[in-house]
């Protein structure tokens, strides 16, 4: 149908542009903390860039734990229950 049509995302350079753009947005959000008055119910949540660091570390930890620990323990062939 539209097999030969090239899409903007098909070019890896554009994906890299998006990736860099995301870093720029992230940096902007961290810097925005300097200008926003923050009111947190929990004191430690008010630390500088707490949510940014937490989000990044939590996701890396999540993926590594799922990949290196859980998958090793529980992965079975697709027809495991049908045999």
């Amino acid at each position, binding site marked *: *149908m*539209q*097999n030969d*049509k090239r*899409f903007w*995302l*098909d070019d890896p350079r554009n994906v890299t542009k998006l*990736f860099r753009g*995301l*870093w720029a*947005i*992230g940096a902007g*959000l*961290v810097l*925005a*903390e300097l200008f*926003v*008055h*923050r*009111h*947190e*119910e*929990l004191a430690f*949540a008010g630390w500088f*860039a707490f*949510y*940014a*660091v*937490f*989000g*990044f*570390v*939590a*996701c*890396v930890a*999540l*993926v*590594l*734990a*799922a*990949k290196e620990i*859980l*998958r090793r*323990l*529980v*992965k*079975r*062939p*697709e*027809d*495991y*229950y*049908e045999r």
Partner: protein
Amino acid sequence: MSADVPIALLPVLGAALVPLVRGRLRVVLLLALPAATFVWLLLLPEGEFGQFELLGQTLTLMRVDRLSLLFGYVFVLALFLTAIYALHVEDTTQHVAALVYGGAALGAVFAGDLLTLFVWWELTAVSSVLLIWARRTERAYGAGMRYVVIQLGSGMLLLAGAALHVTAGGSLAFGHIGLESAGGALMLAAIGIKCAFPLLHNWLQDAYPEATETGTVVLSAFTTKLGIYALARGFPGTEMLIWIGAAMTAFPIFYAVIENDLRRVLAYSVNNQLGFMVVGIGLGTEMAVNGAVAHAFADILFKMLLFMSMGAVLLRTGTVNGTDLGGLYKSMPWTTGFCIVGAASISAFPLFSGFVTKSMVMSAAASEGYVFTWLVLLFASAGVFHHAGIKIPYFAFFAHDSGIRCREAPPHMLIAMALTAALCVGIGSFPAALYALLPYPVTYVPYTASHVLDQLQLLVFSALAFSVLMRTGIYPPEMRSVNLDFDWIYRGLGCDLVRTMAGIVSAWLVAGGEMARLFAGRSLTALRRHHGPESALARTWPTGSMALWVMILLLAYLLFYYL
């Protein structure tokens, strides 16, 4: 319209008309039934109706208050949206099952006593399994069987709990139950199965991905949220629920990361979102319960939207495995867009529904001083964005181009998705409308600069983590596999045990039979030898020989006498 008649009867009895009509008329009927139910709902006055005495207890068929109305609205909305989504389905069973199932869930929400609740509770189980079996595959049959056994078991626990509760002097009325009595504990277990508490959760991941493409959407709306409603009614402020809920938010996301079937990934995220609601109910403050039920409302919509987009992919490509998909945004741009709206809503992006509901629970946890719980919830918030917000759209519609070129989803599916997406954005952008429906007055303000910034930081850096892991190749590739979960206890170990036991018992039976045969054979041979037609005892003897023997005996007697 009289409020004494259960509103659920309209969709449940109306479903009986569906097999009688075809074509356009059926379309009209399928859309008119939920629409008429919605109008009935709007006309309902608050209060308790349809009461009568049975065995010294008062049954209340219709209890209309803010909590039941809130769930009533969203259930009818779900029934309407899924009806549009499933208009192409020829299979009459599925339409009837969906109407009866949604109607039964509505009946349960308005039930004012435990017996009425039980009846509707069981009807949801029986009707919903038809949506799984309608897939008509061997796997779906097995999964449906396990599902219905567990669901009916939940009903039995509920009934047993209610009976204990009443004999212990409690009332049959369905109000606050609590854990003071043994009956209360049994009822919590029954509700826990519906809410998919950890270790009671496997029916969800087992059965939902095996249903038809439209069936899963219907399933995702009712059963678990009915559980949340019952929990909010019977057990608010039960502290145990805070820990249970926190565990529910966290553990499924690990499974979701390594799962290949994208509808099963969503099933794990159902569990994760239910966890937030369970925590809110466990906290039990007005804000927390408000947050829990508001999140249930929002969750029904965005979860349906996500399952709708995956259903459309399944319909067009025949698969929802991450390994087989990718690049579908080229063929299904609208579905991609709606999926992203659902993903943004479940991830609680500002302006999308999850942002204004989930944060009420988190804020309540923080203000009640549950710091550890709050940290778990924050981890789960990042995790849900990771697996439902990014993984679902990414592996289905982007990632590497699978080469699949298919048609866009049919128009009625797109309309259903568009309406659901509009509701997700509407709730997120104008939360006051939803807040006005909540059981308690709302003072919470979701849109503060601080909250928006916090949430955006969390989400953008979660997305960055995903991108970094993807680009460095650390992210685990999708693999064709079954990941063992707690259901291995009954599907693996239990099955093996039963098979082994059956083997041993049948070996015993065979050996016993063999021995019996040998023994019987030998005794028969012996009997035959002595008593058979040819045997000595059955022979006919001549009279002469008897006279001879008598003479010999007499001679012997004479001889001994003289000796």
